[in-house]
């Protein structure tokens, strides 16, 4: 499958934190075509090993989180309306007139309506809706609904994957399935490459909540270095330049205390040598990604971060340019080809 088919398939998987098992298993099937060993651990991280030719060489971990933002049911009323709480950061403004799927005893599609404007209370006019006031309408009456749905069930956004013009696509969970598709592309690029270092690909879980997946996986794996692939903000009219990157111009590569400077410089170098475009982003502290956890895991793991620009992050219309996935994959695959000695040299500060 090509990138677009993979991405469409991946985007339709549901992996709200705590509900990643099924997606992880499906994802592991995709990876098993390209890797020597694939397993799913107790937190549903998909851990894939592509062996290098030298057993004594370094071990490079490449991670991208598989989970997506979503909700949990916290009330089911007698009329069949369902209340929710969020898992991961979400703007409740996007929820009005949004479709969702409740993953109960069986999947139930629901819609979030809106109070008709002429019936809004005076004090609510002009105010953003609060999540606690959001109700999902399933069309089922209370008793019927309670057969399928109960408090604690996971809710995901329902959104079709669409192709826009040129290389652009849109849908839910591009954050961070774009990066999972990118990892598959990296593996494709490395198919016939005889690389020295062991490469460990991790599709990690619970990033949107507490970075649980990557924390536990990196402690267990103890790689010599880590590359985190995530998404970042694509430029839109209402975002300032210094917090966004332009889709189509390659991965955003972060610079700052959270990243190991020599790994970052090497990536810049590889980009220039191989004609791969990239963009730079300065982060003064926490990058808000898994890199924050990997860097200080166990005895410390030198980490670099590449981000694929997406527009409208944490909505059901996240938009991505496929070129950026390709550029990111090329960049990481070049990095993965480094010899053990080359990588080793980068690790000394």
């Amino acid at each position, binding site marked *: 499958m090509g990138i677009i088919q993979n991405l469409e398939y991946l985007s339709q998987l549901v992996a709200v934190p705590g509900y990643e098992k099924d997606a992880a298993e499906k994802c592991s099937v995709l990876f098993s075509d390209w890797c020597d060993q694939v397993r799913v651990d107790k937190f549903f991280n998909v851990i894939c090993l592509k062996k290098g030719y030298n057993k004594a060489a370094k071990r490079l971990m490449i991670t991208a989180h598989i989970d997506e933002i979503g909700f949990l049911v916290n009330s089911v009323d007698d009329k069949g309306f369902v209340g929710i709480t969020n898992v991961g950061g979400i703007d409740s403004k996007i929820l009005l007139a949004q479709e969702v799927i409740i993953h109960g005893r069986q999947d139930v599609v629901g819609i979030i309506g809106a109070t008709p404007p002429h019936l809004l209370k005076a004090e609510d006019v002009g105010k953003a809706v609060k999540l606690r006031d959001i109700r999902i309408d399933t069309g089922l009456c209370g008793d019927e609904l309670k057969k399928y749905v109960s408090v604690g069930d996971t809710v995901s956004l329902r959104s079709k994957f669409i192709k826009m013009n040129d290389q652009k696509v849109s849908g839910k969970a591009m954050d961070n399935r774009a990066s999972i598709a990118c990892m598959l592309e990296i593996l494709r690029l490395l198919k016939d490459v005889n690389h020295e270092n062991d490469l460990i690909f991790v599709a990690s879980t619970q990033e949107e909540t507490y970075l649980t997946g990557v924390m536990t996986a990196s402690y267990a794996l103890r790689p010599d270095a880590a590359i985190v692939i995530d998404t970042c903000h694509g430029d839109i009219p209402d975002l300032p330049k*210094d917090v966004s990157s332009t889709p189509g111009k390659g991965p955003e590569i972060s*610079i700052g*205390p959270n990243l190991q*400077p020599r790994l970052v410089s090497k990536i810049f170098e590889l980009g220039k040598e191989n004609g791969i475009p990239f963009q*730079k982003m*300065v982060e003064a*502290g926490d990058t808000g990604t898994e890199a924050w956890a990997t*860097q200080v895991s166990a*005895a410390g793991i*030198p980490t670099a971060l590449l981000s694929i620009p997406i527009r409208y992050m944490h909505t059901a219309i996240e938009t991505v340019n496929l070129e950026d996935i390709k550029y990111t994959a090329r960049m990481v695959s070049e990095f993965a080809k480094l010899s053990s000695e080359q990588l080793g040299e980068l690790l000394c500060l």
Partner: protein
Amino acid sequence: MLIKELTDLNGVSGNENEVREFIIDKIQNLCDSYMVDSIGNIITFKKGGSSKLKVMLSAHMDEVGFIVSGHTEKGFIKFKAVGGIDDRILPGKKVVIGKKKLGGVIGIKPIHQQEREERQKISKIKNLYIDIGADSKDEAEKLAPLGEFIAFDSDFIQLGPDCIKAKALDDRVGCAVLIEALKHSYDFDLYACFTVQEEVGLRGAQVAAYNVMPDVALVIEGTTCADVPDVEKHDYSTILGNGAALTIMDRTCYCDRELVQYLYEVAVQNNIKVQYKQTTTGGNDAGQIQRTGTGVKTASISVPCRYIHSPVSVMDIRDYEAVERLTIAALYQISKDKEFLRQQ
């Protein structure tokens, strides 16, 4: 003077190389071995005698500062703060950029040109810029590329009979104490750790403590001191000139009560001036170290520093001496105290 040499160096979090090189030069003959770990901490090891105790001393090398985040068409630098810096202090300050110590100034619109409301308002860092004398974006990018670190430009000077002013007293004072402590010998194994990235979230200490897995840790810090006009006495936190400050509790750590008491008694026995830090705000590496492995007996000894996190931090040199003496006296006491951990 060691503190002058240390504060003259620049080491904004994530870019501690200059400080690291200086310290390695100072300590390499004072310890049995040292290593620089994956994140950039220096972990020195000094073998002890018969005691099985592992004691960690920790001071962070990094300081608050800035990082170049963009360039304007006209060649001004846009920047972000690394660590906690009060926006109010920024306009009209001098900075140095990068290894080459390129000079720059944080500009501000002249008062004549400011509207009445503007005069009352605090400029946010995202609206500020640094002028490095570049004429174009290209030139600015060459002189101060993205990601280059920026430190306050401030010299070390004497202030009155007993005080000094410098930048980065937090925590070069701690680094100085550790270097002094390494000149002595103890019965236990000593790990003096010069950590990185404290100011962006106690990052280096987490890794250092994991590598060392000590039984006991003393964190040597520069801490807040608010004994200035317009502050109520009960909000002073520490008082300049009242000696070494012991932390009881802050946001990141409830220090080991017995260890704090032990330090207090060592101070009294050795006629060293000592005070308790009175507020519970702020935090430091102690928080991360204490919760490493199965837990570490941890306490903080600090030098009170007024105007911390600014280019004009002020400390009383006698407070510094008190911290240095207390640290070394405590290490000697622990060294003699065969029952140290058991009686705790």
